[in-house]
């Protein structure tokens, strides 16, 4: 094999080594969600397919695959089929820059965090195109809500990221994690950590902010008209986005692959295991929140985003930079 084709083969293998575990963990996350919700509500959850019901999600995927894919006759056919694909692609290409250990990353970009921010802001297109192409009232209303919601919470996510970047002095995700070797940013920037988790819930359209798919008022929101595997792709993308946002939280605030304290029994455990454990913790918080809080009303959601989070994060950006400047702790 020539060096170039060898390099391409290795690159493709590396990409698969990220994408396949993500897709499998999506299936397991759906199972985990049902089990956790079941435990919180004193039910058993799925327990029939496979040992402890662990194969339930795979059975669901097979069921979705064998169903008929319906195309509404008045829809815009191309965009209708394109929207779920776009959503899934966007939720998967974000993994290109996420470092899961100090060396294991597909592409160690200098502007990794900007890339992630750009990709997550494109995510709204899948939703809004799906809502519009369906040519139906409920999906359209769901799409409009979703677009407004995602844009609103992106603003505060942007300011939270800026606060972290001021403390790091680099846009590289590996640098961001390495600057947390001594102390995780979740401790000095605790309010920002909370704002980020709440905004991540809103950005991924999770409860209590799942207004785009509010079944009580909008049937199923933007994917009301979708069936079979095109519905499955939206479903997959939503959970892949959850895992992505959890990984981003871990990278920005929970010290990525570093152990909590750098002492003997903890620091021999490989970094990748710490990373997965932390992602798991954040994902559990996502599910826990779902079981605990009722859904927000639309105006409450907008008020939280624009009137509470935006001023709070703005003040924190100024405070953090003033603090670092006064004590001459600004990086470089």
């Amino acid at each position, binding site marked *: 094999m020539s060096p170039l084709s060898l390099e391409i083969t290795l690159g493709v293998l590396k990409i698969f080594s990220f994408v396949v575990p993500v897709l499998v963990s999506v299936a397991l996350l759906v199972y985990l969600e049902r089990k956790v919700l079941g435990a919180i509500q004193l039910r058993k959850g799925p327990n029939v397919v496979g040992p402890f019901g662990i194969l339930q999600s795979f059975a669901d995927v097979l069921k979705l695959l064998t169903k008929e894919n319906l195309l509404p006759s008045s829809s815009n056919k191309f965009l209708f089929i394109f929207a779920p694909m776009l959503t899934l692609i966007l939720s998967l290409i974000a993994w290109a820059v996420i470092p899961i250990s100090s060396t294991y990353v597909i592409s160690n970009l200098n502007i990794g965090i900007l890339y992630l921010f750009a990709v997550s*802001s494109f995510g709204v297109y899948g939703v809004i195109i799906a809502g519009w192409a369906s040519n139906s009232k409920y999906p359209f209303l769901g799409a409009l809500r979703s677009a407004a919601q995602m*844009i609103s919470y992106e603003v505060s996510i942007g300011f939270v990221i800026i606060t972290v970047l001021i403390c790091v002095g680099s846009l590289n995700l590996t640098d961001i994690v390495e600057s947390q070797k001594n102390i995780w940013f979740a401790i000095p920037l605790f309010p920002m950590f909370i704002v980020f988790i709440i905004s991540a819930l809103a950005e991924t359209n999770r409860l209590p902010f799942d207004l785009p798919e509010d079944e009580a008022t909008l049937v199923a929101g933007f994917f009301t008209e979708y069936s079979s595997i095109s519905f499955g792709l939206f479903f997959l993308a939503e959970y892949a986005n959850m895992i992505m946002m959890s990984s981003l939280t871990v990278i920005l605030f929970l010290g990525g692959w570093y152990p909590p304290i750098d002492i003997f029994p903890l620091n021999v455990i490989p970094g990748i295991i710490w990373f997965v454990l932390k992602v798991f913790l954040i994902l559990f918080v996502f599910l826990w929140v779902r079981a605990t809080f009722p859904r927000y009303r639309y105006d409450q959601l907008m008020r939280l985003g624009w009137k509470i989070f935006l001023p709070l994060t703005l003040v924190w950006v100024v405070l953090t930079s003033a603090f670092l400047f006064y004590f001459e702790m600004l990086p470089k």
Partner: protein
Amino acid sequence: MFFVGSFFLFATFLITTCIFVIFSKNPVNSVLFLVLAFLNSTFLFILIGAEFVGIILAIVYIGAVAILFLFVVMMLDIQRTTLMSNIKRYVPIALLFAGIILTEIIYLTIYKSSKSNPNIITRSKNNTEQIGDVLYTKYFIDFQLSGIVLLLAMIGAIVLTHIYRPTIRRQNIDKQNSTTATDRVKLVKVNSGQGIEND
């Protein structure tokens, strides 16, 4: 070879999508083609090594501006016939703007590029750091001025569209949250056959 090939690929896509923006029958398709055009210009920026400008262009234009366009265009009830009927009104001003931009491009490509030397930029730092070095120091005034221009545009748009209606009923969240049961409910003794009076 790779560089030139990619440049022509993205440039061709950029021009094609721009043409589709103008000639699409459906305004929503126009906006989606505009998004593709933005995406291709992002690729062009990344190709010349200006990855920061490229990604910022993507975040601002694709992630925010084009979504708002899409938002508005989807809500409008536009008929293509009414759009086409008064299209001639805009031809002179469109030609004027096209002329100005074309003159600028010709001026820049012919006169400026021969004078300035692109290799003068040191490649020791990546371009994000280079922008960071000068944005708040050398170009502080210019940066703040452009910010004020944008703020003025925003305030202008709000002033033009905001109409104060005294009759509108607004929700006061703090007032709503600070009410107690005694403000809303009272226990009334009702005499048989008389009912209660409204107050």
